[in-house]
């Protein structure tokens, strides 16, 4: 099979994996805080992080360009200091997938934690556990199904990211052409037989991860 397709598949997995690691770290923390703590602007933050879920990815991509482009708010500072810009690199694809898939993790985490019986958490405190111990030993284990679901959904969403990725990472053969972007290019240039292989590859990979996630969930919980 075509080596270019292998590259795209590997890149897609690499991007989705990197994005999912970041999403789990950040998303669980954010979901936890939103579920457990009350602070000013809480709902505003929730809306801000959920927006990429409902906005078209092109809108998210546009905001990312404004923020991280060579002349963007953050991008400009970065470029002046280091001479490096995230645009058109595979890190940009990770950034796009991270922002677009993060709401899935935050929302499922928040919902899972909020649905835990509060008595269990109170009991943990009464028995002398600190907040951190309670989170680690009681809350997160009880929310594990939600966390796993969030992780799987985020990974799947990251794997399929197209719009925002196209805008910030471009579609550069051998560098940033993830599988969805490659399918777009192949279909656009009429190479249907290659496109078909790519489509099958992506479908199989996605189906495999769902199967694996379902099995892990049955076994572990």
């Amino acid at each position, binding site marked *: 099979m075509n080596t270019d397709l292998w590259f795209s598949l590997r890149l897609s997995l690499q991007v989705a994996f990197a994005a999912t690691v970041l999403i789990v770290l950040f998303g669980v923390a954010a979901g936890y805080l939103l579920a457990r703590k009350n602070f000013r602007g809480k709902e505003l933050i929730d809306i801000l992080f959920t927006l990429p879920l409902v906005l078209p990815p092109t809108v998210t991509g546009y905001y990312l360009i404004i923020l991280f482009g*060579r*002349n963007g708010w953050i991008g400009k500072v970065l470029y002046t200091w280091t001479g490096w*810009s995230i645009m*058109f690199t595979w890190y940009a694809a990770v950034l796009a997938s991270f922002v677009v898939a993060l709401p899935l993790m935050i929302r499922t985490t928040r919902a899972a934690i909020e649905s835990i019986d509060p008595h269990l958490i109170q009991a943990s405190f009464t028995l002398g556990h600190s907040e951190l111990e309670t989170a680690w030993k009681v809350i997160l284990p009880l929310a594990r199904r939600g966390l796993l679901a969030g992780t799987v959904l985020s990974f799947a969403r990251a794997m399929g990211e197209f719009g925002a990725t196209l805008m910030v990472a*471009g579609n*550069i053969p051998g560098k940033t052409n993830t599988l969805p972007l490659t399918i777009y290019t192949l279909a*656009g*240039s009429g190479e249907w037989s290659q496109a078909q292989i790519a489509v099958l590859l992506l479908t199989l990979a996605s189906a495999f991860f769902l199967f694996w996630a379902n099995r892990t969930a049955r076994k572990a919980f």
Partner: protein
Amino acid sequence: MRPLSKAASIFIMLLVFLGMISLQKVSAQEITISAAISLKEAFSEIAKHFEARQKEVRVLFNFGASGDLVRQIMAGAPVDVFASAGLKEMDELEQKGQVVSGSRANFAENTVVLITPQQSSLKIENLSDLTNKEVTRIAVGNPKTVPAGRYADQVLRNLKLYDTVKEKLILAENVRQVLDYVARGEVDAGLVYATDAATKAKELKKIVPVPEGSHQPVVYPIAAVKGGKNESLAKAFVSWVISPEGESILRRHGFKIITNKK
């Protein structure tokens, strides 16, 4: 009435209202034109004059990379007229028998230029400066679907620069995206048509023509597409583009007119 059902009934009324608007018969005839995105301003102006002359006609545009457009037409997109930025795309369509015979005309020419962003601190005076190691990103159209990318590819290969710069190439989906990447300063340089550069001249530092003969001539063909909704109107639009009025608009936008149109 409960507030919820009140909201629901307002919503339904709105839907009915919108439905009534869309049901109103549109009396105007429509034609859809798929055109190379570099023709955007010139064709929009030509269409405005066309609509003013032909009463009750609406011209709809689908601008994009010629390669994408021809693919859409072959896949059955309802298009009446196709105008490409390269002979290759029109030849493909013609070979598939999807061009109305006798309607094709090679009507305009363009040139390729090297452009750099206004705020750039790099010294890029000509194409060979692209090999400097300070130049890290050069935008060109994707040669597979974008004619401007194909010409850029030919330029770089003809001048024996391709192997040195190929790692720096950022492929864009159409020529206006190349222009946008450069204008925004996202890349250090780009290759576009002279007419594109003219639309954003203020945001560009340098506009340098590439050496003559370093790429195939940039020739724009136009033709009525077979199976369109309105073939006579499509032919009328094609003749309007190659009429003296159409040509003067094209010239004003920087295109060179081809006298021998076959």
